[in-house]
C-alpha cells in the first residue's frame, strides 16, 4: 500500500475500496468484543468459517469479526448484511442453519431473532429491537460494521475524511472554534468543555504541546471506552490527530490500562496502519503537519485515570496526582501544555468535524450536547452498552432500553458515575440525564457507569462497597483520602455488621467534609459521594442499621437470620440436603429447623426452597421464633387436612 499523500488520493482510494466492497455481497458480522467472546463468540466465528468453506461459499460471502454493538446480555451477537438481520445468543450448532437458511435461501431463522418477553413480538432486524430502537448510536453504531483490525473497513465508512477536511480546508483556529460551538464536554467524568480546554493549550506560549487519550477506564462495571477502543480504534486516533492539529501539537500518548489487552492490541495495530497509510508521521496527507503517537500501558492503579496522576505515570514516575492549581492544559505532561481527553470525547471529534457543530448540538440538552454511552449493568434485563442523547430520562434508559428489573423485583436505585458518583432513588427516575442534573441530584455523570439496584440491595452496603474500593485504590499521597477513606470504611463496615453506634453518621459527615474540601485530587474530593448520596436518599436505612440492628433490604449477613416457617415447611428435604453447614435439623415428614448456631448465612436454603412452599424466610431486627417442640414437628400435608 503506497502512502496516501493528499486529500484527492484518499478519496480516490476510498472509491476503489467502495467499488471493491460490493454492498450487496452477504456479510456475516460477528461481535468479537470482550462480552461476546466471554459468551463463546470465538467458537461461533470458527464454526462460521468452517461452514462457509464446507458449503463452498468463500467467494460470495464475507465474514467479519467486529467490535461490540452493545447488546452484551444476548451475546454472541451476529448480524447478517445487507439485510441487517440480527441473531442473538448464537451457538456454534446454529451456524449451519444460519448459512443454509439466511445466506443461501434468504430466510430468517425465527428462533434466533429477538422476541419481546411480554408481547412475544419478533424483531428480526437490528433496528427493530427495542434495546437499539430507543438509542441514538452515533458512536457505537459503527462497531458492528467494522473489523477493528482493518483500516480499510474504517475508510469505507468515511474514515479519516474529517482529518483530510481539517488539514486541507480548515485553519487550526477554526477547528477549535467548531469544537467550542459543538459544546462537547469531557466524557471522562469532569464534563469540562473540550473546546475551551483546547483553546487554552493552543494559546499557551510554550511551543511543545501534547495531546493525550485517557483510556484508563477503571470504574467498576464500566466498559464504554473499552468497546470503542477495541471496536473502532481508528475513530479515536483520527480525533486525536485532529486535536493535535488544532492545538499545534506534534506528539500524542494513548494511556490504556493493561487490563484491556485487546484494546492495547487493536490500538497499536491501528497506529501502525495509520503510519503505513500516511495518516500519522511526517507531512500527513501532504499538508506539512507532522504527528506521532505512542501507547503507554497503565500498571493497574485506579488513580491513574485522574489526569495529573496519568501524566505523572507517563513521565515514568509513581502515578500520583499533583496539585492542579495551574491547569494541565497550561502546565501538564513534562510541564508542557497538554490536552487530555477521554476516549469517548476524542471519538466524537471526527463526527463533529464532518457533520458540523450544529448537527452535534441537535442531540442532547442545552448544557450537555451530543450523546453519551452508558454501561448499563446490575439488576437490569438488558445488560449492555447504551448510547443515548443527553437529557433522556433515567426511566427511559432503565425501562425502554434496559427492559426493566429482572424477576419482577422492585427498582430501588441507580448508581451513576462510578465510585465518585452517587445513588439516585426511584423518586428521581424522571430526571433528565445530563452533566448538570446528575450533579444536582448528588451524583455525577462520571465516565458513564450505570448500576441498577433492586429492592434486595442494601444502600449502606453499597456505600461500604464503594468506600472499600476507594480505600484500596487511594494512592495514599494525601491524608484526607488515605486516612479518611480508611476510617469511613471502618465505620461503614461496623454499621453493616451490626456494630453501628449513635454518632456514626455525624462522624462520617465530618470525615466527608474533610475529604471533599481538603483532598488533593478529584478522586479524594469525591470519595464521600457514595456515602453522602445514600445518606441523602436512604437515611432511614442507616438509622435502621444503627438503632434497630436491622437491615431493611435483608441483605447484610450479620443482621439477618434464616428461618423456616413451620406452617409452610412441607419437609421436602431440599434445604436439608443442600445446606453446606449441616445447619438444618429435620427428617422425613418432619418440619425443618435452622440451627442458628451452625448457620453461616450463605442463603442456600433460601434459594433452594421450592417457590410453591416459600417456607424459608429472612428475618432482621427481630428475634427468631423458638423452634417447634420436637413432638409437634410432624408435617400435616395440606391436601390431607
Amino acid at each position: 500500500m503506497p502512502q496516501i499523500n493528499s486529500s484527492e488520493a484518499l478519496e480516490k482510494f476510498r472509491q476503489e475500496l467502495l467499488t471493491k466492497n460490493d454492498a450487496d455481497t452477504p456479510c456475516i458480522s460477528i461481535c468479537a468484543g470482550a462480552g461476546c467472546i466471554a459468551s463463546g463468540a470465538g467458537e461461533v466465528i470458527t464454526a462460521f468459517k468452517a461452514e462457509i468453506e464446507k458449503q463452498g461459499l468463500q467467494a460470495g460471502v464475507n465474514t467479519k469479526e467486529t467490535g461490540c454493538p452493545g447488546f452484551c446480555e444476548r451475546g454472541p451477537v451476529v448480524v447478517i448484511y445487507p439485510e441487517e438481520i440480527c441473531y442473538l445468543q448464537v451457538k456454534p450448532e446454529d451456524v449451519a442453519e444460519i448459512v443454509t437458511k439466511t445466506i443461501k435461501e434468504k430466510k430468517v431463522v425465527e428462533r434466533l431473532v429477538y422476541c419481546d418477553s411480554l408481547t412475544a413480538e419478533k424483531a428480526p432486524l437490528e433496528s427493530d429491537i427495542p434495546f437499539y430502537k430507543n438509542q441514538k448510536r452515533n458512536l457505537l453504531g459503527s462497531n458492528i460494521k467494522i473489523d477493528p483490525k482493518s483500516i480499510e473497513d474504517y475508510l469505507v465508512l468515511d474514515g479519516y475524511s474529517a482529518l483530510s477536511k481539517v488539514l486541507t480546508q480548515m485553519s487550526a483556529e477554526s477547528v477549535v472554534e467548531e469544537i467550542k460551538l459543538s459544546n462537547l464536554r469531557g466524557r471522562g467524568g469532569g464534563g469540562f468543555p473540550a473546546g475551551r480546554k483546547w483553546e487554552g493549550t493552543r494559546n499557551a506560549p510554550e511551543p511543545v504541546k501534547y495531546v493525550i487519550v485517557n483510556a484508563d477506564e477503571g470504574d467498576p462495571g464500566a466498559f464504554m471506552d473499552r468497546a470503542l477502543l477495541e471496536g473502532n480504534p481508528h475513530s479515536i486516533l483520527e480525533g486525536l490527530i485532529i486535536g493535535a492539529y488544532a492545538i499545534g501539537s506534534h506528539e500524542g500518548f494513548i494511556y490504556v490500562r493493561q487490563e484491556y489487552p485487546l484494546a492495547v492490541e487493536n490500538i497499536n495495530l491501528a497506529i501502525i496502519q495509520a503510519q503505513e497509510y500516511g495518516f500519522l508521521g511526517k507531512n500527513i496527507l501532504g499538508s506539512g503537519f507532522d504527528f506521532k503517537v505512542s501507547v503507554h500501558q497503565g500498571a493497574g492503579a485506579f488513580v491513574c485515570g485522574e489526569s495529573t496522576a496519568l501524566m505523572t505515570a507517563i513521565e515514568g514516575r509513581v502515578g500520583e496526582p499533583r496539585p492542579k492549581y495551574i491547569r494541565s492544559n497550561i502546565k501538564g505532561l513534562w510541564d508542557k501544555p497538554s490536552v487530555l481527553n477521554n476516549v469517548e470525547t476524542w471519538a466524537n471529534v471526527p463526527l463533529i468535524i464532518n457533520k458540523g457543530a450544529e448537527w452535534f448540538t441537535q442531540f442532547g440538552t442545552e448544557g450537555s450536547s451530543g450523546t453519551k454511552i452508558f454501561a448499563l449493568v446490575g439488576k437490569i434485563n438488558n445488560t449492555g452498552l447504551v448510547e443515548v442523547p443527553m437529557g433522556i430520562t433515567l426511566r427511559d434508559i432503565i425501562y425502554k432500553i434496559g427492559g426493566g428489573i429482572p424477576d419482577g423485583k422492585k427498582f430501588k436505585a441507580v448508581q451513576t458515575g462510578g465510585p465518585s458518583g452517587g445513588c439516585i432513588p426511584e423518586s428521581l427516575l424522571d430526571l433528565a440525564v445530563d452533566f448538570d442534573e446528575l450533579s444536582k441530584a448528588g451524583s455525577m455523570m462520571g465516565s458513564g457507569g450505570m448500576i441498577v439496584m433492586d429492592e434486595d440491595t442494601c444502600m449502606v452496603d453499597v456505600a461500604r462497597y464503594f468506600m472499600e474500593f476507594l480505600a484500596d485504590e487511594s494512592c495514599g499521597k494525601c491524608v484526607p483520602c488515605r486516612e479518611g477513606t480508611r476510617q469511613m470504611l471502618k465505620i461503614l463496615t461496623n454499621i453493616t455488621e451490626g456494630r453501628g453506634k449513635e454518632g456514626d453518621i455525624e462522624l462520617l459527615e465530618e470525615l466527608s467534609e474533610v475529604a471533599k474540601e481538603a483532598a488533593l485530587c478529584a478522586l479524594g474530593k469525591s470519595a464521600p459521594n457514595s456515602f453522602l448520596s445514600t445518606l441523602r436518599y436512604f437515611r432511614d436505612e442507616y438509622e435502621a442499621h444503627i438503632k434497630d440492628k436491622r437491615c431493611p433490604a435483608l441483605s447484610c449477613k450479620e443482621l439477618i437470620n434464616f428461618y423456616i416457617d413451620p406452617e409452610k415447611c412441607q419437609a421436602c428435604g431440599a434445604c436439608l440436603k443442600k445446606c453446606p453447614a449441616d445447619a438444618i435439623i429435620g427428617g422425613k415428614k418432619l418440619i425443618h429447623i435452622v440451627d442458628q448456631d451452625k448457620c453461616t448465612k450463605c442463603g442456600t436454603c433460601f434459594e433452594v426452597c421450592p417457590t410453591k412452599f416459600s417456607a424459608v424466610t429472612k428475618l432482621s431486627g427481630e428475634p427468631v421464633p423458638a423452634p417447634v417442640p420436637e413432638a409437634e414437628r410432624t408435617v400435616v400435608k395440606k391436601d390431607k387436612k
Partner: protein
Amino acid sequence: MSEILLEIDGKEVKAKAGMTILDAAKSVGISIPTLCHHEALEPFGSCRLCSVEVDVRGRTSLVAACVYPVANNILVKTRSAKIDRIRKIILELYLAHAPDSFVLQDLAKEYGADKDRFEKEASFCIHCGLCVRYCNEVKQKNAVGFVDRGGRKEICFIPEIAAKECWDCKECFPLCPTEALQAAYVLSQALFTAPPE
C-alpha cells in the same frame, strides 16, 4: 510586573510571581502549620494541614497554601471555623498512627484535637515523604522510597543503596515529624536483609 499584591488575613502582602501562599505568608510573619513542607524540597501538598481559604473574584475555595501560587487580588484566610475544623480532624487522623509525636501533640493542643478519637493503628509513619524526598532531591541517592499504595503504603530503604550510603548520612532522621527511631528501625531492617557484598 513580577510584583503581586494579595491580602492575607486582612493584611496587604507584596509577593513575587512564583511564590506560594505559604511563602508569602511567611514573609510577613503569618504562620501556617505544615508537616510535609521543607524549605529545601519541592512542595508536595500531601499533609493538607496548610489548607487555607482563598477568595478568587468572589469564589471561595479551600487550597493547600504550600502549592497554591500567589496571584493578584486574591484574599487569603489562614484561620476560620472551617479551616480549624478540618485541621483538627486531619490531626486526629494522624494521631491514630503517631500518638506520641511531639510535633503532632503541640498542634493538637492548638486545634483541640483529641488523640484518641480514632482507633489506634500505630505505624509512626504519617507519609509526609520528607525522608523520601530529601534523599531524592537533596542527596540524590534514592536510598529510601515508598512501597505499595493507600493505607498499605510504607517507607522502605533499598538495601543495596542503603548499605553503601545511609550509615554515614542519616540526614533524613531529624526531618521526621513523628519518630526518628522509626527510620532507624526501617533502615536497620533493610540493612539486615542486604545481600552480602
